[in-house]
């Protein structure tokens, strides 16, 4: 039976992994290459790297880090951040990414999803959206969660899938960084309308939050988190063991203990 995936997310800036709270106040954590290898060894099912750099120089450094990671870590690697064109897709795929995550780039140019799915296949196009409640509606936010686009989130994701996105990352701004659990209401709404894998993001604070996520929204395929893993609050090997004890099907290999 297919297993639920646990995905650590690494925000990379200037060659280091950083993690902030509610998209603000960034903290330096560790070397992304080292963290990626550690996560893979203790049972992470996949990794997400977000390139939160701006300059050309830093982008070159990011590509080097990506290549180094993909040469030593053999689990799926998704890359996001600064993906605006088909050329950006090519650039990160050639550096070792398996999937590419688009966010603001798809808001600026909605045909980006279709073009990339046509060129590289839906299996490597991930649509990621930062979503927040505004006036009783779920809205898509751009620019790292700072700008309300006014776009209604559920139909945005549904359209994204119809254009060719093969997977969705649903990041709730309301629950992100505050560690009070995933946004069950939002995730259920999304799972009700799409047939592609859904990755839940934003709000993980404890092991129980992951158990609640997979029990309350069984259609969710994966749970993504950053700080709880980076700061060692939750060990992935412990998390997976506890999920299994709670009847949730996860991959526990010989090397994960």
């Amino acid at each position, binding site marked *: *039976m*297919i*297993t639920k*995936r646990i995905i650590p997310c690494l925000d990379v800036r200037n060659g280091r992994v950083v993690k902030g709270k509610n998209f603000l106040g960034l903290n330096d954590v560790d070397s992304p290459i080292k963290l990626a290898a550690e996560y*893979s060894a203790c049972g992470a*099912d996949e990794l997400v790297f977000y390139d939160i750099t701006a300059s050309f120089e830093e982008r070159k450094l990011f590509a080097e880090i990506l*290549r180094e990671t*993909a*040469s*030593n870590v*053999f*689990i*799926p690697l998704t890359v996001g951040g600064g993906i605006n064109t088909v050329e950006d897709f090519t650039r990160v*795929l*050639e*550096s*070792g990414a*398996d999937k590419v995550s688009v966010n603001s780039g798809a808001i600026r140019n909605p045909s980006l999803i279709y073009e990339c799915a046509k060129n*590289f*296949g*839906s*299996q*490597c196009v991930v649509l990621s959206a930062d979503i927040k409640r505004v006036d009783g509606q779920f809205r898509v936010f751009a620019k790292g969660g700072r700008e309300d686009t006014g776009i209604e989130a559920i139909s945005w994701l549904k359209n994204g899938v119809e254009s060719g996105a*093969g*997977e969705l990352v649903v990041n709730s701004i309301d629950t992100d960084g505050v560690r009070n659990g995933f946004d069950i209401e939002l995730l259920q709404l999304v799972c009700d309308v799409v*047939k*592609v*894998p859904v990755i839940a993001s934003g709000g993980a604070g404890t092991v129980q939050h992951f158990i609640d996520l997979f029990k309350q929204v069984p259609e969710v*395929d*994966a749970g993504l988190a950053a700080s709880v893993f980076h700061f060692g609050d939750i060990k992935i090997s412990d998390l997976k063991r506890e999920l299994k004890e709670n009847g949730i099907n996860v*991959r526990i*290999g*010989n*090397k994960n203990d």
Partner: protein
Amino acid sequence: MVGIIDYGVGNLFSLVSSFKYLGISAEKVSDEKSIAKCDRLILPGVGAFGDAANALKTSGLDMVVKRVANEGTPLLGICLGMQLLFEKGLEFGEHEGLGLIPGNVVSIKPLAKGNKIPQIGWNSLEFTANKGDIYKYTPNGEFVYFVHSFHADCPAEYITAQTEYGSLLTASVQRGNVMGAQYHPEKSGESGLLILKSFCEI
């Protein structure tokens, strides 16, 4: 040397890296002369069956792959590369494959609820009575990483492992020296690397 057949379809970065990590000499190969020099071959591939079959045919490598496979060189098709080993692919119409293994490539049966298509994620291998040569180091029930909407519908004698996804899907096949894995060994962590290692020891 392991030759990774490069016919312009898909990303070969991880495959090349996997062999390097294992300390096994491997190279991308894209012409008849270099393919003939390899003592084993990987046929990779992602995307749609028709496009990949065309790319292989246009490059003329379809005949080369068939010839070296028939001469006994161990060949491992991965993901779409495995699907190309069969006679026909029924994805967006009907397309001719290499015909090295009898059978067709058909879509995963959708169920009312539960199994999303494509299958993306880690699923377990259930070995059949014909244990494949690529599983020297692999225990039954091992998890590997799948990304696919289609799978092989072929005689049971060629199926070496299945995976449960609403129904039982073909996870790997073998007919003599021709083998295929529907999943990505190069993305299946330590378990996947051991599968590639096993292939290199045939």
